[in-house]
């Protein structure tokens, strides 16, 4: 490999990881002032686990994340079946457009449009009554299913279709074939898609802020309100924990998909 390429590889990774390592280092800093190293301490982690506000926001985010990821995975997998197996069905262009636009749509637009929908629907039908975890979950399912589709679709397109044909020839119905043949093959992609959707939901600030109601403060909303005012060291500890969980999740997803393909 040319020296220039090697350099850009390492420079690129250094750029991506420097802030993360700075954050982790700060989280073990005994000093309240971020710039001064006051010795190694796990003080902020203790502080974190005594903070009721943070714990309850984390619980809200966790629940929304699991529900959103599950809903988005169901919709994303159904959409993938449609896109890969049904050829040129009527309304395909519109469907493909609606399924891919959320990938790039600015979050402020998605957020404001969903809130106005919820409010107008409440005026017209009385549903949803107020906003809270359910409206955030609906919003998250909507944008996360596009990401699940991106992960699942290529896997489905490249799988050996003769397996499905064989199953059908031997008399299995389409549902049985999907459950016993297709699903196991695309399962690693489904797991990756679920994890990605969970992370996207768990991290979302903007869309949740628009669609939240009283009593449904998510973790990113709480973090944002804290760091807008001042740098707070306990957020460093929280960030380190989130990074660690994300790393474990990602490694698990990669290992799983590798074992399945081997």
């Amino acid at each position, binding site marked *: 490999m040319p020296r220039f390429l090697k350099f850009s*590889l390492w420079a690129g990774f250094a750029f991506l990881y420097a802030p993360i390592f700075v954050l982790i280092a700060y989280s073990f800093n005994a000093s309240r002032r971020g710039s001064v190293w006051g010795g190694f301490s796990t003080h902020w982690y203790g502080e974190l686990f005594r903070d009721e506000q943070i714990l309850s926001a984390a619980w809200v985010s966790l629940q929304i994340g699991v529900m959103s990821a599950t809903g988005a995975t169901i919709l994303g997998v159904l959409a993938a079946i449609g896109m890969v197996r049904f050829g040129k069905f009527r309304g395909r262009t519109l469907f*493909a457009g609606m399924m891919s636009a959320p990938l*790039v749509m600015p*979050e402020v637009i998605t957020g404001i449009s969903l809130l106005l*929908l919820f409010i*107008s629907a409440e005026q017209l039908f009385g549903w949803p009554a107020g906003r809270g975890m359910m409206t955030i979950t*609906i919003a998250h399912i909507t944008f996360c299913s596009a990401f699940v589709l991106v992960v699942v679709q290529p896997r489905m397109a490249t799988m050996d279709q003769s397996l499905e044909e064989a199953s059908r020839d031997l008399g299995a119905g389409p549902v049985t074939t999907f459950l016993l043949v297709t699903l196991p093959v695309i399962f690693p992609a489904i797991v990756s898609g679920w994890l990605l959707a969970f992370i996207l939901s768990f*991290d979302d600030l*903007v869309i949740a802020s628009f669609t939240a109601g009283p009593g449904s403060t998510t973790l990113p909303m709480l973090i944002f309100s804290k760091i807008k005012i001042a740098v707070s060291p306990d957020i460093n500890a929280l*960030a380190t924990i989130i990074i660690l969980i994300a790393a474990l999740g990602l490694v698990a997803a990669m290992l799983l998909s590798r074992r399945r393909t081997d």
Partner: protein
Amino acid sequence: MSNLYRQIQARMGKTFVLLPPYLWMFLFFLLPFGFVLKISFSESIIASPPFAALFEYDADEGILNAVFRLFNYQYLIEDSLYFKAYLGSFKVASISTVICLLIGYPFALAIARSPKAQQPLLLLALMLPFWTSLLIRVYAWIGILRQDGVLNNILLWVGVIDEPLLLLQTTFATYVGVVYAYLPFMVLPLYATLEKQDLTLLEASRDLGSSPIRSFFDITLPLSLAGIISGSMLVFIPVIGEFVIPTLLSGESTLMIGRVLWTEFFNNRDWPVASAVAIIMLAVLIIPIIIFQNQQAKQEG
């Protein structure tokens, strides 16, 4: 008979599979834009929700009155703040896209030309920051860029500068944050096209006497156009509406439309103006979004 039965079954199966995502995306993605459009023609009032009804049923006369007010749009044109904010977003998004491309291309090429066995690990390393909260990663830059932050301390220690530089709340901080947050979105589609490239083409070009640089511009670059378009759109479009990065890193230095929309909505509680801001943003983004979708469709087909 059984053939007909199978056909009906297949038709019903298709409907069963497609209907849930189709209906969901129609109801919760497409339809809401209609409400944004509607409320952008409304008037801001002090009430809950804070906008006037567009349609009023007059029971005495038995007619439905509809009033479309254009003054929100007029307001956007008259107050130069909005034009400056759209322009600011456009500038940040365009320049960031170019910087992401310049940094991301060699980065993606390096991963694609690494030994096959190493590539999954490199991709994992690339994905990991993307999987951790954007909010937290942007926040990390505050610790690096502020006056008593890591970067200033290092520069002082090395002796490049004598007193700390003002880095945070500058345009520079905005670009660092945006490029940092969106670089993986550029690298991943680039890697996907570069990895599929037929390397024998490159060998042929070299055998026929082209220099490595000439071969790159004749073969590698044109064949990766799909990745360049996808990556650029994945950066450019969301950055136009970016809210978190300008709020945390830019201070008053860079005016961006996503933050203006947020302020109108949450601080001023002027929902109709915020809706009009969103509608214009959407109108501006329609063409980039269509380019992006055509590219997606081509890659499938």
